């Protein structure tokens, strides 16, 4: 198994309706929007019955409201707004005809009931976010957070979730990495079509059969550069390159699928061309101890030109897959 954490940092534009609602939150106000003879809170941009765009006819609602439904969260998740047990609730604010889903900081499930009257407790630091309303609390009186509203209308909202995944590493990937650590490629030949794959592929994608240890073949350590790109790096988290660098496709002799986005070693960008004959450069045992296992071809540092005459076979050069 391999563990990884993916973060999802989004900046979303709010538009005139959601922006108005979140701006009002910074002012410790709750607003709804008129839709026919109803008032929707939270405000939507359209009539939920007809889909017609709503005029921006906002009305103050609340601040108190009535719990229409609730559930008790005994063990909050890291994404929940409170770090101690709380209720999620649908709250119909006074003057609104729909329910706002939010949290109630009620202390205990015993304090919750359908029909319970609640009022907002405002956060001291408000930024135009749903959780500027920290939580509803039982009672009629809002709990002020102090301070004033936003100087400018709120137009953007940040969101950042982080999720840790644990995914299985297929057997062929494990064996492919082990082979790479020994300075060789693991070849897998489909017994039906005869195509040979490398890189830990689990299946022949043409015949959809599993490739296992019995399908292993030795592969020569020679390849041809079939396509390339020069990447001019922009700086983002994790990017360590600073100068333009090459990524090349290599068709390993004896196989039927190119190895994508390979690195070149000791080769100036100006010298890169399709048809270039290449040999793999493997990590030494000492280098392997440092960072091996990060990629599928853990021991493969990159490729270096052999100096042999270029390949000219049109079936080889410019191959992408």
């Amino acid at each position, binding site marked *: *198994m391999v563990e990884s954490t993916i973060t999802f940092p989004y900046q*979303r534009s709010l538009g005139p309706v959601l922006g108005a609602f979140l701006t009002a939150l910074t002012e410790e106000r709750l607003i709804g929007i008129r839709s026919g003879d109803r008032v*929707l809170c939270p405000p939507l941009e359209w009539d939920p019955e007809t889909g017609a765009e709503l005029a921006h006819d906002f009305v103050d609602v609340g601040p108190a409201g009535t719990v229409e439904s609730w559930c008790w969260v005994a063990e909050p998740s890291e994404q929940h707004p409170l770090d101690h047990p709380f209720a999620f609730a649908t709250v119909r604010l006074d003057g609104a005809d729909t329910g706002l889903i939010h949290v109630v900081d009620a202390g205990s499930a015993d304090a919750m009931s359908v029909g319970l009257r609640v009022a907002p407790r405002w956060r001291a630091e408000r930024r135009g976010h749903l959780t500027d309303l920290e939580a509803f609390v039982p009672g009629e009186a809002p709990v002020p957070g102090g301070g004033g509203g936003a100087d400018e209308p709120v137009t953007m909202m940040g*969101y950042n979730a982080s999720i840790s995944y644990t995914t299985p590493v297929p057997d062929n990937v494990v064996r492919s990495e082990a082979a790479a650590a020994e300075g060789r490629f693991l070849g897998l030949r489909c017994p039906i079509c005869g195509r040979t794959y490398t890189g830990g592929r689990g299946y022949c994608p043409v015949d959809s059969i599993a490739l296992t240890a019995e399908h292993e073949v030795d592969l020569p350590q020679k390849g041809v550069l079939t396509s390339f790109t020069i990447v001019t790096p922009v700086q983002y988290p994790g990017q360590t390159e600073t100068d333009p660098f090459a990524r090349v496709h290599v068709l390993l002799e004896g196989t039927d699928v190119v190895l994508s986005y390979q690195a070149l070693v000791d080769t100036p960008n100006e010298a890169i061309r399709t048809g270039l004959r290449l040999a793999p450069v493997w990590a030494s045992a000492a280098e392997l101890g440092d960072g091996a296992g990060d990629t599928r071809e853990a021991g493969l540092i990159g490729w270096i030109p052999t100096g042999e005459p270029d390949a000219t076979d049109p079936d080889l050069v410019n191959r992408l897959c």
Partner: protein
Amino acid sequence: MAPDHAPGEHPDDIAIIGWAQTPMVRHTDQTETQLLLEVVTGALDDAGLTRADVGFTCAGSCDYVAGQAFSFVQNTDAIGAWPPKRDSHVEMDGAWALYEAYVRLLLGDEVDVALAMGSGRSSTADPALIYPMEMDPFYLAPLGADALSLAALQAQAVLAAGDVTERQLAEIAVRCRRDAQANPYAQVSGEFDADALLAEDAVRAPLRRHDLPPITDGAAAVVIARAERAKAVCDSPVWITGIAHCAELHYPGMRDLTRSSSARTAAEAAGVPDGPVDVAELQAAFTHEEPLLIEALELHPSVPVNPSGGPLAANPVMATGLVRIAEAAAAIRDRGASRTVGHATSGPCLQQNLVCVLEASR
């Protein structure tokens, strides 16, 4: 929309002719591709066909669940996409992949066999953290509004309305787990006592453990064919005589949570009320969803619901709905029913519903 002919008589009639599902487990070491390879081979074996016979494929899976962008691309290894195949993907349960495959076959060109798949490994990460990202990004995701919490809000509304009691919900769980003992694929099964279940603490009041589905890894595949091909290769095709889906407003606070209007609309469009129903397989992943859906689909109280054990016995997210349709088909081909219903749902609090009516040949 009751057909005006016996199922299978019109060339545009489409039948389910094979299906397969993986064992449903809390955690598998197999990748999604491996799970799909198994069920694609299994469903085609069941239909007496090979991958070469399939003209269109459609998969349902979720990148957020897989933890990988474009995760469905590598899943095409399972379908044998060479020579190139017409392929599609829905970021939805495989039941919607089946819907797309059904619509594709209605074109009536040279494609007369299609394959629908659904796959998910929910063990990959914490579902409570993944689900909120699929919700309204302004009003729900910032609260970490997870599936369990939103379902519990609906359960409370149903209980408060007096439509059902907590004991009735526990009895649904007891029945599903008992029925699941006959389902070799089920993850949760056995004899349980409603009193004992009700004595347990709530997980998310009012929901207790037995009200919730298990977390499941699994996949399913279904093969469908146009009438001529179906009759040529299959002794007992199961005819899709109605299929429809319908969505309602996303935000649960603006809906009457004690009803499922989109399920009702979809059921009427699929023709559920046009005849007797022998078996219904419903994607009721939480106990309270079962009575809600029975009411929306206007099922007679005598109709057996989820004899497979249903999602309370195994809930392979992204395949749970497709499994319902496969089980509804199995009730006809393997257990002698004449007319069954398969149901799938998506979104918070039964926001979107798909209903499929299946009939035996006459």
